[in-house]
């Protein structure tokens, strides 16, 4: 049996893990600074460092660009990468399926439905939000959370009734299809401008998150990450199969409930603030496992969080097309980078399912 208990690991293996983790954390820091240094507007690196160090620079416009635009965006990239990476890991473990991602339960489809209702059928749904005092980005975030929560409640109710995780996967996929169909109907009957606004939301956006929104976004993602750290033992047991986990005396339904709840918080918050970011959730856990082979979530979790941050910061640098005034939609970049990455890992590893048995 391939049950890797940390106690029996050789010391060198642990040492190489710690070294790897520190290396990746160092890469996160480097990319964070590079990310802030590059953008549509060219700002000399000295000025960037001065601004970050809190020293006043000559050009107030540059200082504002760095502090009001680039730093919040870089922080958002780290949160999105870590949050989606971890929720992808949780789903892959819950379903013991390498193709699972944060959105298999229909969370992003639910969020899309909420946003579609708000933008496309905006007259009645959006109006209620506007009148309740939440408008603009907050309205979209609130609509996304409402939609994701709606789907989540249904999935949770179903999950408490059924024993088999695989059935849950199918139900999640069906929920996704059903909500997408409703979104299509809404699009069909909407004005071109509204459809355009909705489509732009689906492209994803890291730059729309300001300091104000980070005050909400940071604690939510941190809570999700801490909660997932607290259930790593349960995750290790789940990976061995429902029956095995039960034989260890674990309440499988309760564990499943927790995993789904944490995933929803992480993926739901990311989708609410940044739109449905594609591929990161599926690709990052595989990439982390290819860097360090393990089935122990106490080792995987920090690695996935940091790898996610690296990938997202990197994707955002590409999306800025440094040196030009133009940008690419972040989703196009994550998909273009994410899809070949997964293919490459599959080729390299040959057998992905070995991590799930």
């Amino acid at each position, binding site marked *: 049996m391939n049950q890797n208990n940390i106690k029996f690991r050789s010391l060198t293996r642990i040492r190489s893990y710690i070294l790897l983790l520190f290396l990746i954390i160092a890469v996160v820091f480097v990319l964070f600074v590079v990310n802030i240094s590059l953008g549509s507007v060219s700002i000399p690196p000295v000025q960037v460092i001065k601004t970050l160090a809190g020293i006043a620079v000559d050009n107030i*416009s540059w200082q*504002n660009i760095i502090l*009001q635009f680039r730093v919040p965006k870089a922080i958002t990239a780290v949160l999105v990468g870590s949050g989606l990476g971890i929720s992808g890991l949780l789903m892959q473990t819950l379903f013991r399926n390498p193709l699972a991602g944060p959105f298999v339960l229909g969370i992003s489809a639910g969020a899309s439905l909420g946003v579609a209702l708000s933008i496309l059928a905006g007259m009645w749904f959006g109006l209620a939000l506007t009148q309740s005092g*939440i*408008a603009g*980005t907050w309205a979209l975030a609130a609509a996304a959370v409402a939609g994701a929560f709606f789907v989540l409640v249904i999935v949770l109710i179903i999950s408490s009734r059924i024993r088999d995780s695989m059935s849950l996967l199918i139900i999640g996929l069906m929920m996704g299809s059903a909500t997408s169909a409703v979104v299509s109907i809404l699009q069909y009957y909407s004005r071109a401008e509204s459809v355009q606004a909705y489509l732009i939301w689906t492209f*994803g956006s890291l*730059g729309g998150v300001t300091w104000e929104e980070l005050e909400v976004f940071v604690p939510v993602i941190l809570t999700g990450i801490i909660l997932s750290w607290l259930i790593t033992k349960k995750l290790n047991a789940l990976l061995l199969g429902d029956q095995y986990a039960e034989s260890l005396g674990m309440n499988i339904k309760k564990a499943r409930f927790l995993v789904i709840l944490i995933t929803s918080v992480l993926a739901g918050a990311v989708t609410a603030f940044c739109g449905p970011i594609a591929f990161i959730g599926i690709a990052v856990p595989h990439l982390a496992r290819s860097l360090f082979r393990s089935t122990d979530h106490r080792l995987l979790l920090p690695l996935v969080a940091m790898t996610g941050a690296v990938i997202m910061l990197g994707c955002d640098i590409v999306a800025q097309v440094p040196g030009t005034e133009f940008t690419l*939609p972040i989703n196009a970049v994550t998909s273009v980078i994410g899809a070949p990455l997964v293919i490459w890992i599959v080729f390299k590893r040959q057998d992905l399912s070995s991590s799930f048995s």
Partner: protein
Amino acid sequence: MQTSLNDSIPSVRIEYARRFAVNRINGYDIITVRSPWPGSVESYAYILKTSDNTNPIPDIPGAQVINTPVRNIVCYSTTHLPFLEMIGEQEKLIAFPTTSYISSPVFRKMATDGRIQDLGPTSEINFEKLITLNPGLVMAYTMGNDLGMIQKIILAGIPLVLNADYLENHPLGRAEWIKFTGLFFRRAELADSIFNSIRSRYLEYSGITAGSTDRPTVVTGVVYGDTWFLPGGRNYASIFFRDAGARYLWEDNLSESILQLSFEAVYERASGSDYWIGTASYETRQMLRNADSRYAEFKPFNTGRVYNYSARINPEGGNEYFEKGYARPDLVLADLAAIFHPEVMKGHKLYFYRKIE
């Protein structure tokens, strides 16, 4: 014998419009519409037949023969409608896709009275209803994605002409399409004189502002996702700003279409601009600030020089600016000139624009 349009002489003088021309052969007016959708190379010829002309109809391959004056008409775009009203043929409109988008009180009344049929969403015209109505003319526009449906309507024996007003880069070029509409109703002279008076007023206002030495800077649009959409320097909107005596901050750009820039690129160039014109769906400064707190860093936000084209929005969300703005560039220009140069446009009451409070 085949006739070449090149041998004929223009019968209607076209000054600003680039996408259509009118020639006369054997006493028949022949309208040629060039490149009627973005990226198209096709051109379409329409031979306007009259009952009093007994000459042989010119043999032009692919040309449609249309009996004029047309007994009634179906239009696809709200921008086609003001011309009907201006030449006094409003009663001839018998159907429109999604009548709730119409702003004009005249046509709204006709729609409520059941005199204008609703053909469903523009993306999917109700073909059977259209065929049953058997209109004398369908005035359509296309983005190139529904050519199959257009072909089907022509094959069903219904005369259909393509209107390309939305591709004209000069404001007066769009207004000049009144001549196109006028020809089908045999109202060419009336259309010509209406256009001439619009042109004189337009040139009068641009002449007044040209005398002003002060050219305030202007920025336009808002961020969607991570992208700020702005008209290129050769775009319709840019020409309006120039003629209204303002310096559009991207006027040196050579693009005729829409630029997609990053927020920081726009911030760097335009945060100190004098005016901000066109804030899409944001109607108050509070809404702008809620959507993105960084909007509040723009100078016009704090000096109160923010205006939107939303003074006339009907209860169902249709904006009169998008309907009538093409036909009445003189009204748009008068508004803009009064915003930028209140000293020379004394007493002008804004028509399409309103100040964002």
